[in-house]
């Protein structure tokens, strides 16, 4: 079972991604950066989907993950009157911290995919999936430090707000003319400073308020049902 899983992931990383990149270079020579980054974003999500397919004790994990993801989407909808002030990143970080890397990635990716059903799907969906997923994944990797120190958790929340904004600006820059113009990227970053600040502050506020109750409840559930 495990072996098959690894073979799939190797196939994707060493065959699928290079093929896509090569096809992009050959066919659309002018706008290859856009296509390549798109291909990388899409294919980085796939290994996580495959590893979720191979999980034992699937239904409990799926429902728990579904609850966390639905909470983040509902939070996004409940706080819709306040622009850019959203608990999604906070919940994704907490999910990754408590339930592990893979769950964190899936929680972030699914939040992006499904909340875009309500807003709008587009070529940016894979990028949002990738970046929110990675935030959850890294939170899972650093769960030891994040659980121990509250200050680190808040710093991580603020940083993930900055990283999210910076990464989505890369995408905006490339969407513009298919190339990566550093000047344009910097101006996009500068013009997005207020939004980035709101992201960082809202992440800190939500983590400050939600981290204790949600961690306690998740730990209780995991202990009670031996997950």
């Amino acid at each position, binding site marked *: 079972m495990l072996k098959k899983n690894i073979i799939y992931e190797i196939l994707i990383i060493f065959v699928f991604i290079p093929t896509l990149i090569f096809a992009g270079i050959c066919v659309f020579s002018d706008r290859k950066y856009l296509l390549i980054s798109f291909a990388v974003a899409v294919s980085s999500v796939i290994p996580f989907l495959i590893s979720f397919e191979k999980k034992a004790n699937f239904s*409990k994990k799926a429902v728990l993950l579904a609850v966390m993801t639905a909470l983040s989407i509902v939070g996004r*909808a409940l706080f819709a009157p306040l622009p850019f002030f959203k608990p999604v990143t906070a919940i994704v970080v907490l999910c990754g911290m408590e339930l592990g890397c893979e769950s964190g990635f899936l929680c972030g990716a699914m939040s992006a995919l499904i909340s875009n059903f309500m807003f709008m799907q587009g070529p940016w969906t894979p990028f949002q999936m990738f970046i929110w997923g990675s935030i959850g994944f890294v939170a899972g990797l650093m769960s030891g430090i994040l659980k121990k120190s509250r200050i680190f958790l808040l710093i991580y929340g603020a940083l993930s707000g900055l990283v999210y904004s910076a990464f989505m600006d890369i995408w905006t820059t490339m969407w513009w*003319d298919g190339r990566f113009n550093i000047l344009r990227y910097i101006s996009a970053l500068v013009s997005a400073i207020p939004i980035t600040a709101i992201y960082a502050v809202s992440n800190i506020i939500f983590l400050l308020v939600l981290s204790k109750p949600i961690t306690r409840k998740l730990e209780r559930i995991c202990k009670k049902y031996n997950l």
Partner: protein
Amino acid sequence: MIIIMQNECAFSKIHPLPLFMWFVSVISFTVLAMNPIIVIISFIGAVAHRILVSKKISVKSIIGNAVFMMMITIINPLFSHHGVTELFFLGGLPVTLEALIFGFFMSIVIQTSILWCLSMSECMTSDKIIHLIGKIFPKIAVLISLILRFIPLMKDKYKRIIDSQTALGEPISYLSAFSVLVSIFLEDSIDTADSMKSRGAELKNRTNYSNFKFSPKDFCFLIFDVIICAVIIISIKKGCLNFSFYPSISEIPTENSACFSYIMFAILAFVPAAVEVIFWTRFVSISSVLNIPMKKQKH
């Protein structure tokens, strides 16, 4: 018989797989081909579909989009100083005609792809995405449908929690209500999981319910899409559609092979508008025969 809701477009009745392929191919050609004719064809196709589907178009949105397009056009020359035709100098850096035209071109590209994305959001609803994903990743499809079910449940429960706080005369705290919501759903989640397991959610070779049938029509549409894509990709590969903005604007390619791929792309881009027109004229005639009252769509 095809049943269609009032606020649905007829184009969305095609099977999800060819539909998704169609949207991917049109959006990627619009964004990647870098050819003005292709982009203009795509723009007209998208506008035609939007007009037919949304029926009511506000002047406000048109003005908003025009302002957005103008902003992109004006901003581009400030960042890009390539090109040979200098118009004037701004802070020691040249503002070129080529950069201005390229900005206008990009504004149309972005506008067109946003319009197609709007159509795609309306046509590719969540059930279709679940159907597509469920073929390859059945468990992810289950996960998505669980999430989609939890969202309205949670909204409803959240309202009830707030209501009960009000009824108890306590000061309303939205965050504590959210916390209560978390507790309730985490506790309930294990019940749901047990119920799912006992009904065989973890069995192998479990089939998914889906309401979509892959008919011969859909197969023909898929083949049609693939052939046109192949034609356009070959002509891009051969360089028939090459067009460059920098250093100076080149001539628009108009050889026979280029014209052939323009026509092919036009056929592809006008499919949704054509489907809409054909379907609604037929539907209206049937409904008038059967004397079904038709309500106008309200937003």
